[in-house]
C-alpha cells in the first residue's frame, strides 16, 4: 500500500467514526434538522423590511370633503391604518411616546380653503423614526401619493388644483426583485446564515469533545497526522451541510417561491465551498478552545458579526469602510453575493470569481491555522 493510500485509509477511519458518532448523537442530529427548519420558518416568514398597515392616529382639524379625500387616499396606500381619531393636539405626544402609533397625521384648520386658494397648505405627518426601516416605505408612499393618488381624486371643480407634469422623469428600473419582496432577499441569505451557524457549531466541538472525553490521548498515540484528523472530521459535516443545503434550497424554491434563475451546478458547487469554509473556521476554533463551552462562545462570537456585517441584515454598502473591511473577512459576506447572484440574477462562475476566490482563500487560511494550532502532543 502506498503512503498516500494509507493516508486516505486513516482519513476514512476518522470519517466513518465521526459519521457513526453523529448518527448516535440524537440531540445533534435533531439540531441539524431543527435549526434550518426553525430559522427558515422564523426568518423567512417573519422578516419584512417593508411593513404595511402601520397604526396611525389622525387629528383632522379641517373636517371638510377635501380633508376626507386626503384621508381616503392615505388609506389607499395600504401603509397607514388609521385606527384612532384624536380630538386635540395635546394627545399627539402621548401617542408617540407610548409608541402606540407609528404615525400621527395632523390636518390643519382651513386645509381645504387654503388648498383652493392655492396657498400650498402643509399636512403634518409625524413619524416614529426610532425604527427608520419601518417608516421608510410609508414615507416614500406618502410622497408618491400627493403627486399621483391625490391628484387623481381632484376632479370636477377642483381639477385645476392637480399638479402639472414635471419637466422630465427619472425612471428607475428595479432589476432582479422588482416588487421589492423582502423574502427574495432574506431567504437566499438564510441559506448562508443557517449553514454558518450549524457548520460552525458542529466542527467547533469536534476536537474539544475528544479532549474532554479523554479519547484524544489515544488518538494522538496512534500513527495519524493532524491533516488526516482534520479532513476526516470535516468531511462528514460537509455531507450534512449538503443535505441542509438541499433542504433549504427546496424550501426556498417551493415554499417561499424564490426564483432560481442561475444554474444549479453553480449554486451547489459554490455552496459546498462555503460549507467547507465554515467547517474550517469551526475546526480552527476547536483547536484553540480549551473546552466545549469556549468553543461555543467562539462560534457565537464569529456568528454575530457574520449576521450583522455581512449584508444579511443591513445593506453592506451602508456601512463605513472599516466595517466593510471587517465584513469582507467573513465568508458569509462573499457567499451572500454568490447566493443572491446565482438565485436572483442568474450569475455564473465568471461573474462571481472574486467572491469565489475570497472564499477559497479564507478556507485555506483557516485550515492552515487549524493545522498549525493542532496540538500533536499533550505538552
Amino acid at each position, binding site marked *: 500500500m502506498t503512503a498516500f493510500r494509507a493516508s486516505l485509509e486513516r482519513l476514512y*477511519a476518522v470519517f466513518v*467514526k465521526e459519521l*457513526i*458518532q453523529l448518527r*448516535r448523537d440524537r440531540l445533534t442530529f435533531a439540531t441539524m434538522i431543527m435549526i434550518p427548519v426553525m430559522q427558515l420558518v422564523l426568518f423567512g416568514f417573519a422578516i419584512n423590511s417593508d411593513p404595511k398597515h402601520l397604526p396611525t392616529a389622525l387629528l383632522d382639524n379641517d373636517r371638510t370633503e377635501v380633508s376626507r379625500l386626503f384621508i381616503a387616499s392615505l388609506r389607499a396606500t395600504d401603509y397607514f391604518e388609521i385606527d384612532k381619531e384624536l380630538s386635540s393636539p395635546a394627545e399627539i405626544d402621548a401617542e408617540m411616546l407610548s409608541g402606540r402609533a407609528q404615525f400621527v397625521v395632523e390636518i390643519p384648520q382651513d386645509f381645504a380653503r387654503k388648498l383652493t386658494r392655492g396657498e400650498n397648505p402643509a399636512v403634518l405627518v409625524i413619524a416614529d423614526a426610532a425604527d427608520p426601516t419601518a417608516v421608510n416605505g410609508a414615507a416614500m408612499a406618502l410622497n408618491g401619493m400627493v403627486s399621483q393618488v391625490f391628484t387623481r381624486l381632484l376632479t370636477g371643480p377642483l381639477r385645476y388644483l392637480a399638479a402639472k407634469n414635471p419637466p422630465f422623469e427619472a425612471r428607475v428600473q428595479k432589476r432582479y426583485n422588482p416588487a421589492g419582496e423582502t423574502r427574495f432577499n432574506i431567504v437566499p441569505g438564510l441559506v448562508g446564515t443557517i449553514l454558518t451557524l450549524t457548520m460552525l457549531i458542529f466542527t467547533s466541538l469536534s476536537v474539544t469533545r475528544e479532549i474532554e*472525553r*479523554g479519547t484524544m490521548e*489515544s488518538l494522538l498515540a*496512534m*500513527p495519524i497526522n493532524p491533516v488526516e484528523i482534520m479532513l476526516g472530521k470535516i468531511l462528514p459535516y460537509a455531507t450534512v451541510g449538503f443535505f441542509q443545503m438541499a433542504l433549504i434550497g427546496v424550501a426556498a424554491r417551493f415554499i417561499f417561491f424564490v426564483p432560481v434563475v442561475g444554474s444549479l451546478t453553480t449554486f451547489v458547487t459554490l455552496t459546498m465551498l462555503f460549507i467547507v469554509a465554515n467547517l474550517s473556521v469551526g475546526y480552527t476554533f476547536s483547536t484553540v478552545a480549551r473546552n466545549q463551552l469556549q468553543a461555543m462562545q467562539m462560534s457565537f462570537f464569529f456568528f454575530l458579526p457574520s449576521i450583522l456585517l455581512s449584508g444579511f441584515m443591513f445593506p453592506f454598502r451602508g456601512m463605513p469602510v472599516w466595517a466593510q473591511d471587517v465584513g469582507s473577512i467573513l465568508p458569509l459576506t462573499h457567499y451572500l453575493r454568490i447566493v443572491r447572484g446565482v438565485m436572483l440574477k442568474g450569475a455564473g462562475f465568471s461573474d462571481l470569481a472574486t467572491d469565489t476566490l475570497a472564499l477559497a482563500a479564507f478556507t485555506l487560511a483557516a485550515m492552515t491555522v487549524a493545522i498549525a494550532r493542532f496540538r500533536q502532543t499533550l505538552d
Partner: protein
Amino acid sequence: MSRPADDIVIDARNLSKSFGGRKVVDRLSLKVRRGRIHGFLGPNGSGKTTTIRMLCGLLTPDEGEGYCLGFDIRKDQREIKRRTGYMTQKFSLYADLTIEENLQFIGRVFSLPDPKQAARAAIDRLGLGARANQLAGELSGGWKQRLALGACIMPKPDLLLLDEPTAGVDPKARRDFWDEIHALTDEGMTVLVSTHYMDEAERCHEIAYIAYGHLLARGTADEIVAQAGLSTFTVEGGDLGALAARLKREPAVAMVAPFGARLHVASRDALALAALAQEYAGQGIWTPDAPTLEDVFIDLMTRAQDNYQ
C-alpha cells in the same frame, strides 16, 4: 547519544519534564530489554504516566534523550507510534462506538491489510463475540480493560506501554490479564507496565521504582529486595498495639506495620534490630523474616519523602 543495541527496546537517559515549574520527572534513565516485562512502580504522582507519555511521543521531554525501538523519541514519534501500543490509564476508546467499530477504527488507522477481518479476529480472541455490537461505554470495568488491551495489541506492536492497566479490576481478571501479557512477551513483545500492586510487580521480569520523579531502585524483584539491605522480624502474641507504638519511636526502626495478628518490623541496621528483639523479647515472639518487596518500597518511599520533599 548513540543508538542503543538491538535488544534494548527502551533506552532513556536523564529524561526531565516540568509542569508549571514543578519537576515531575527528574533525570530519569530507563533501559528495557526486548521480550521483557518491565514493571514501573511508584506512588501516585511520582511521574510514571509522564514518563510513559514521553516514551511514546505524547510529551516532549524538557531535557534528556531517549530511544524507543531504535527511534529517537524527540524526532521519530511517528515511527514509534506505528509500532507501539499505548493503553491509557483512563478508558479512552470511543464510548459511543461499538466494540467492533472501535477495533475497525484502530485497524484502519494502523493500516492493517483487512481492518474488518482484524477486528473480527480480535473480538474472537477476546471472547467478545456476543458483545461485538455493544457500545464500548456500556461494558463493565473488567471488560473495558480487556477491550483496551485487545485494541492495543491488535496492530501487533513491538512495544506495549500500559499505564495502570489493572486499576479497579477484580483479581480473576487481573490474573487473566497477566497471563495474556506473559503470552505476548513469549512471542517477542516488550512490555512496560505501571502498577500499584505488589503481586503484579513480582510477576515482572524487572522493576523500576520511582518516586517524586526520581528513579530509586531497579532490577529484578529479588535484586531490589537484596539491595535494600533491610532486616525484618515478625512479632506474634502480646499487646502488639502498644509494642508498635514504642518501636516506632526507636531510631533504628525503619518501618512497623501490622499484618493481622502479627507485626512486621524492619530496619536497615541488622544489629540494632537484633538488639531490639532481645530487649522486647518479653512482649511477643520475635522471628527473623525475609523482607518483602512491599517493605522495600515503603521504606524507599519514606526515605524519598525525606530527600526530595
